[in-house]
């Protein structure tokens, strides 16, 4: 038997790709509190990040990150639902203060402590309502090893460009499953930097231009006073109750995401000519969906596939695609179809059906069955 020489491959898991990508992108500090199944991100960061802090709890972790971000450093953490729940108020603070940071959320089976070593996709409903008042918290979802490499960088860029916390949504298997990975897939990662205000006029912390994203200066700046506040505030960063300037500033927090979404929109659309059915999936279930589509096509079935990666805010482009199809199937590993409800509401839509489940990965066979059902 002859030896067919294949391209050189590495064995790795998603955690290594994510942390190496973020480190090369210029992330400054990882602040972590241990939790399964996010611990590989913690240990890899300890080895790879310029600075590493073991926080005494998840609230401290997020608060320390906010402190770092006010000085211009880019902080990263990784957690799972129980830890994220503790972080939530501080995530709102970072959102209000407009502090860039990345929170890697590794989903596991809930409710509560649930099963720490079992993967899940159960936190999207929480994320869509995470910011009090109906604001969008950006959520980027990885759906392959390649995504772990590229989207980690892109999520960090989004956080910096829009001055916002961003959630990189993953799950246990995406972080922990080992896989062969061709070296050629490791595209070059550019260093990201936080630009600083250099204007001649006095710095006004929350004054914005047409991008709706304010200029940045770190606290401790030698020339200009810098203010941050988690309370409703005017452009100077002074607490207000409900003055027009302050409420306009608060509304801007949502508008900046809507306005700039097109620059941070990531998805895969594999449209097949003549297909009436669109399969939508994200995260860990995307791989099962890819396999289901491959099998269906081998059987001569026509089916299209949409894998949204910028899950939130929901991009209008997704609806443009959805409108082309008579049947929509959404596969995700949670009990009631969280992204399905985000897209179509509790009322639902007759042409939409879900493939759902908990405690085990959804199989290509189950997806195929629903795609083929009348």
């Amino acid at each position, binding site marked *: 038997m*002859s*030896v*067919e020489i294949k391209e*050189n*491959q*590495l*064995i*790795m898991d998603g955690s*290594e790709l994510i*942390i*190496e990508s973020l480190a090369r992108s210029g992330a400054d*500090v990882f*602040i972590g509190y241990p939790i399964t199944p996010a611990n590989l991100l913690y240990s*890899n960061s300890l*080895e*790879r*990040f*310029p*600075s590493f802090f073991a926080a*005494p*709890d998840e609230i*401290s972790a997020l*608060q*320390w990150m*906010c*402190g*770092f971000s*006010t*000085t211009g450093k880019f*902080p990263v953490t990784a957690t799972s639902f129980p830890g994220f729940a503790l972080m939530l108020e*501080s995530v709102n*603070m970072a959102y209000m203060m407009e502090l860039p940071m990345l929170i890697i959320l590794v989903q596991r089976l809930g409710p509560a402590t649930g*099963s*720490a*070593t079992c993967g899940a996709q159960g936190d999207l409903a929480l994320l869509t309502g995470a910011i009090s008042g109906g604001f969008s918290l950006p959520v980027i979802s990885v759906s392959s090893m390649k995504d772990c490499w590229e989207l980690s960088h892109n999520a960090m860029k989004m956080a910096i460009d829009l001055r916002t916390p961003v959630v990189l949504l993953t799950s246990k*298997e995406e972080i*922990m*499953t*080992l*896989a*062969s990975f061709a070296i050629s897939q490791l595209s070059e990662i550019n260093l990201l930097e936080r630009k600083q205000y250099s204007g001649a006029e006095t710095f006004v912390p929350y004054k914005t231009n047409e991008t709706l994203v304010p200029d940045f200066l770190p*606290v*401790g*700046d030698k*020339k*200009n*006073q*810098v*203010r941050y*506040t*988690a309370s409703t505030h005017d452009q100077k*960063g002074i*607490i207000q109750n409900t003055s027009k300037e302050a409420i306009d500033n608060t509304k801007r927090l949502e508008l900046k995401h809507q306005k700039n979404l097109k620059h941070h929109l990531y998805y895969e659309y594999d449209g097949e000519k003549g297909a009436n059915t669109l399969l939508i999936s994200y995260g860990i279930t995307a*791989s*099962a969906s*890819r396999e289901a589509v*491959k099998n269906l096509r081998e059987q001569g079935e026509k089916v299209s596939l949409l894998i949204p990666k910028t899950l939130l805010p929901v991009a209008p482009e997704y609806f443009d695609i959805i409108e082309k199809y008579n049947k929509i199937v959404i596969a995700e590993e949670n009990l009631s179809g969280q992204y399905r409800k985000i897209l179509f509401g509790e009322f639902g839509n007759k042409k939409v059906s879900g493939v759902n489940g908990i405690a085990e*990965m959804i*199989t*290509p066979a189950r997806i195929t069955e629903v795609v083929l059902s009348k």
Partner: protein
Amino acid sequence: MELEKKKFLTDADLPFCKGCGHNHIAANTEKALQLLGYDPMNVVLVTDIGCHGIIDKSFLTHTVHGLHGRSVALATGVSAALNNPEKKVIVFIGDGGATIGMQHLIDAAHNGFNMTVVIHNNMLYGMTGGQPSEFTPAGFKTPTLPYGGKKTGYDICKLIAAVEGASYVCRLEGISDFSEQLAEAFSKKGFSLVEVMEICPSYGVKSNPGMKLSKVIENAGLIINKFVDREVDNYKTEVKTEFRSLFSESDAIQTKFPSKLEKPFRLMLCGSAGEGVQAAAEFILKAGITSGLNGTKKGSYPVTDGVGFSAAEIILSSEEILYTGSPNPDVICVTSSDGLEYARKTLANMKGGKLFIDSSLKAPDTKAEVIYFPFRERGGAKNSSIYSIFYFLTKTQLFPMDSLLSVFNENKIAKKFDQDKMFQALNEPFVDGLTDNKKVIV
């Protein structure tokens, strides 16, 4: 020292009630910073939630106003990031904030983060209607505690003094001029704390008519004193500048062996924690990749390390692997009773394939071909998984044995492992007469 023109506070009136101690703290902070010759741009004031927190707009320093109880944690991040003792980080927090954020105070003191925490202790929650905090002393009345507290409040100075790491801790009565004490605290390296005793004119005075602050302090058994004054090492943030990548091209696996695999192959190893299941799975994965295949390995285990089942699903394929689960494996190796329990559901669903199972166990009903072998007896519990993968490869010849050996021999496990004994054990025929299942002679 008389105040120069204000450098740290604006000329506007302070935003507090007449007679509130918060006014004194702001004014004394201005004076203390002047005493020390600080530039306002070298000062970061971090404030908590509560009446004191609305002071930001009056300060000409950098200001950060966060969440209730979290100001010390927020300041920890600021301080660790600035990593520069020349930049003065000051935290204003109330007794309510210190209650909810006690962990942050202890942690910041413990680590010696550069900051001075000024606790505005008026013994109640002033912003929300005068509810008691954990600092409310016994007998002190508030609007929602009309008969007075029953227990004595926290003595924060004693608590923080007990934490090794604080450089300065003192309690003072928040009247007249205490700028020198504040200046002393501000000038300390590392973590310093000043508790300023106050009485809230809106709720404290009204609920305790005629009671003087000094009397409240005395009745509470709180001592006005310096508790700690020492030189300690302040926290220094490590910033590494040299790294090794988590992976590099030199780690790449080269194809050295052929494989005749034509369709994806799914193997499941099911055993017990501590018996090498995950390591064995990685050997097979790497051997497969060395044989020119793509591979994935998904691990499953309970929450506690080192207890219960341990299972791994390996997929090897000449094509790209999309889905990494194995609901219908081609082969399952079961080496322990924990592993068997985990494998039961999969075994029940299998429509073919093979089950290699330890001869001490009884195979459940399955359509897989059942093959018994004494992995545990011949290899010992710790080596049972390693034995099972070599046995598996002997039987399936999925790829050359040399491929698995080359991977295995690179590992430190191999150094203490008797390979000759294993191959002899694997080749020795096995007849199991102890169970009533249909027996397979190998």
